[in-house]
């Protein structure tokens, strides 16, 4: 009964989404206040019913109602309750429902915080979000109904993929989706602005905090996914350039470009049409990501839903969304040019370079991800593009970007006099070069051109990001949250670059055969396998090795890597043993039993790997601080009336 109620709630949500998608748009066109007012109410109602349906699905999982096909396929009686709940979004149907839920949450938030926007504008934004929601609810109901019954009901379920039985992966999809879906708000703002034909600076000011919040969710989501891959996939890599990873990374790159371009549009009224295009692109890439993941079209470890009808539906939806957005853009964008100017040495120039480089990076990732597909469609064979290609291609635009970042942060709008600028940046530059050349040699005993370039870049960004916070601390003049947020986010980039450079240059990895009592030495560390034993978990049994790590005779720690066999699916899983330190991880994973008492073992030394995720979290923190800036909260109605209706001329 409960699943049917959930199904019914989804249908009601669809009707409300349709109301929300159509009536406010018509209302805004006819200037009919009553019709415009439908938007918020419908959005709230839609959220209620989607949340209700979601609750029904959670209930079905917690109660282990195996008469629901989705539950029967992805849960199991002995599964711990936490994972019964997270199993809701562990596969296609449920994660789609979660997508819709998060979209309706964003919509309710937009409805709530848009009360000080002009009515017609808010109505159009809610209308566009309603149309998007309609598309996704239709997709759910027509192709991927999570409430479908199974008859006869099995006595026990098929279990959740053991890889997904992990706290990191329980919260990774919600965060990632919050980011993906969040770009729909920037998209809706862009469409609303284009429909009204009134694209002034206020539009950028309203869009900025939403974009930043979506971006910070996406940042944390991607970082969490990378961390999960590192410890759970068992082999110590943190980024594989897998199509599904790329699918989340492309919107991130474009979203980052969008944040920067919005800054120019807000402060200077420039780059308007470009900003619009980025807003459209960020959301389109989120949709494309959904298509790539859900259609199973690419060779990918994540491609768990292989169903052409679903792929076809998303592709059609994607086509309609992108095409109508671009048609609108082609119609409206030419009338939005601004006549303001700027000097070559100005913040505008650096933000322009930022955008160009980020878009190039996203384009290259896009090419590498889709090349296998294109080649196959052209019948020219079956290829795959490996990680080495992505690493080189990605570094080409990113390296200059990182160096320019330190310069751009300290450049004034319009025009920056060269002399004080050079004086300010001289010290960080010297520090970066000296440290960059010395660190690799002093700490890791090896010099190298590429390593030094990477470390110099990292230290340069860290040093230049700290200039303003240090000055403010010394002088006692508080920074605005916007400036502080920017400094911290850039600091995060520096930490990230430091982590990536060190891990790629100085990691040590070796595969070895090992029996109890034997040891391996890598770097300064000695790993001794003390004992092999059997361990029983709630829904698996495991073979566990106890490995003691010493450095120069001194005890460092003990790790317990496991090889687990999950009882229901009979599948094997590697659970790595990791000794975590702020400046290095020591990583041990069990391979296979290759003799009576002998196991193949992979042992790794990963210097500074924590800085990769730390850097990402610091970036997100910077975003969080930036959105707390007062100016986003005090957009008064009067100000909007005055500014909003007069076309930008300055």
């Amino acid at each position: 009964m409960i699943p049917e109620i959930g199904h019914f709630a989804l249908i009601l949500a669809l009707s409300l989404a349709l109301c929300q998608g159509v009536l406010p748009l018509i209302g805004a066109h006819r200037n009919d206040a009553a019709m415009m007012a439908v938007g918020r109410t419908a959005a709230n109602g839609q959220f209620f019913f989607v949340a209700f349906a979601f609750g029904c699905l959670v209930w079905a999982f917690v109660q282990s109602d195996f008469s629901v096909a989705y539950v029967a396929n992805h849960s199991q009686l002995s599964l711990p309750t936490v994972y019964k709940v997270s199993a809701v979004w562990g596969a296609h149907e449920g994660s789609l429902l979660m997508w819709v839920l998060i979209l309706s949450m964003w919509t309710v938030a937009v409805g709530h915080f848009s009360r000080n926007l002009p009515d017609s504008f808010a109505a159009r934004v809610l209308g566009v979000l309603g149309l998007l929601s309609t598309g996704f609810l239709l997709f759910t109901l027509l192709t991927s109904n999570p409430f479908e019954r199974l008859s006869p009901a099995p006595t026990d379920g098929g279990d959740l993929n053991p890889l997904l039985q992990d706290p990191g992966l329980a919260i990774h999809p919600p965060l990632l989706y919050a980011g993906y879906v969040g770009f729909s708000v920037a998209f809706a703002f862009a469409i609303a602005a284009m429909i009204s034909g009134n694209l002034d600076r206020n539009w950028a000011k309203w869009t900025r905090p939403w974009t930043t919040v979506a971006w910070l969710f996406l940042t944390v989501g991607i970082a969490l996914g990378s961390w999960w891959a590192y410890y759970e996939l068992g082999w110590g890599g943190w980024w594989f350039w897998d199509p599904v990873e790329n699918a989340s990374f492309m919107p991130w790159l474009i979203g980052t470009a969008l944040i920067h371009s919005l800054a120019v549009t807000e402060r200077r009224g420039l780059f308007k049409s470009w900003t619009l295009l980025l807003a459209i692109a960020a959301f389109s890439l989120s949709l494309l990501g959904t298509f790539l993941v859900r259609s199973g079209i690419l060779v990918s470890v994540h491609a768990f839903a292989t169903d052409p009808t679903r792929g076809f539906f998303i592709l059609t939806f994607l086509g309609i969304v992108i095409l109508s957005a671009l048609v609108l853009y082609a119609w409206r964008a030419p009338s939005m040019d601004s006549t303001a100017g700027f000097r070559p040495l100005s913040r505008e120039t650096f933000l322009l370079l930022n955008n160009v480089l980020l878009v190039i990076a996203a384009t290259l990732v896009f090419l590498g991800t889709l090349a296998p597909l294109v080649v196959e469609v052209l019948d020219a064979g079956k290829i795959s593009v490996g990680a080495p290609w992505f690493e080189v291609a990605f570094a080409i635009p990113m390296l200059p970007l990182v160096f320019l970042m330190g310069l751009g942060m300290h450049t004034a709008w319009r025009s920056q006099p060269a002399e004080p600028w050079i004086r300010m940046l001289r010290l960080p530059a010297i520090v970066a070069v000296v440290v960059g050349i010395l660190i690799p040699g002093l700490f890791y005993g090896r010099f190298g051109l590429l390593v030094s370039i990477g470390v110099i870049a990292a230290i340069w960004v860290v040093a230049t990001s700290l200039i303003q916070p240090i000055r403010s601390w010394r002088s006692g003049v508080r920074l605005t949250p916007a400036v502080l947020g920017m400094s911290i986010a850039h600091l995060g980039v520096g930490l990230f670059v430091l982590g990536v450079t060190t891990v790629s240059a100085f990691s040590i990895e070796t595969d070895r055969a090992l029996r109890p009592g034997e040891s391996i030495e890598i770097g300064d560390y000695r790993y001794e396998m003390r004992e092999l034993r059997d361990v029983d978990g709630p829904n698996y049994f495991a073979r566990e090795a106890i490995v003691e790590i010493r450095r120069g005779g001194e005890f460092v720690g003990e790790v317990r890597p496991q090889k687990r066999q999950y009882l229901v699916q009979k599948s094997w899983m590697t659970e790595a043993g990791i000794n975590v330190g702020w400046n290095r991880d020591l990583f041990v994973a069990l391979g296979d039993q290759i003799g009576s008492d002998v196991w193949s073992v992979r042992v790794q030394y990963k210097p500074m790997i924590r800085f990769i995720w730390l850097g990402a979290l610091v970036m997100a923190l910077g975003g969080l601080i930036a959105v707390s800036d007062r100016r986003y909260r005090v957009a008064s109605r009067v100000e909007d009336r005055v500014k909003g209706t007069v076309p930008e001329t300055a």
Partner: protein
Amino acid sequence: MKPRRQRMLAVGLALAGVAIAAGLTLRAFQDNMMFFIEISDVIAGEYPKERNFRIGGLVVEGSVERAEGSLDMAFLVTDTRCDLAVMYSGVLPDLFREGQGVVAHGRMNDDVFVADRILAKHDENYMAPEVAESLAKHVQDETTHLQEGPGPAECVSQ
């Protein structure tokens, strides 16, 4: 800067960037693009020489050999028509099983495929599409033979 020049600068930069990136990309593609070659084609000698490529198929039951306590191992991979000997040294992915699908990266050395990577799949129900296709093709060959016409293509070596 005047808007005209501004726009020229923007377009110029973008074009230059894309051109450089595209050039380097094409170069890098040459080395990092890996073709998937069906086992039958490998056996017939139709594979890129002196270059890495990918193969895939089923691990033949009972073919996995390993010296006691050593990381070195050998096994046969089949597309149901031809079998190919594969050598590998290192830790295997969790889902490597006899009778299951596998994908390997590496190159030919005499008649043996020396793999430097064996690919892990996260889900045992999931098989890489190119492997599934390659297998399906040969199974189809055999069914058509049962009904009429020429027999299943024999494995032809070079």
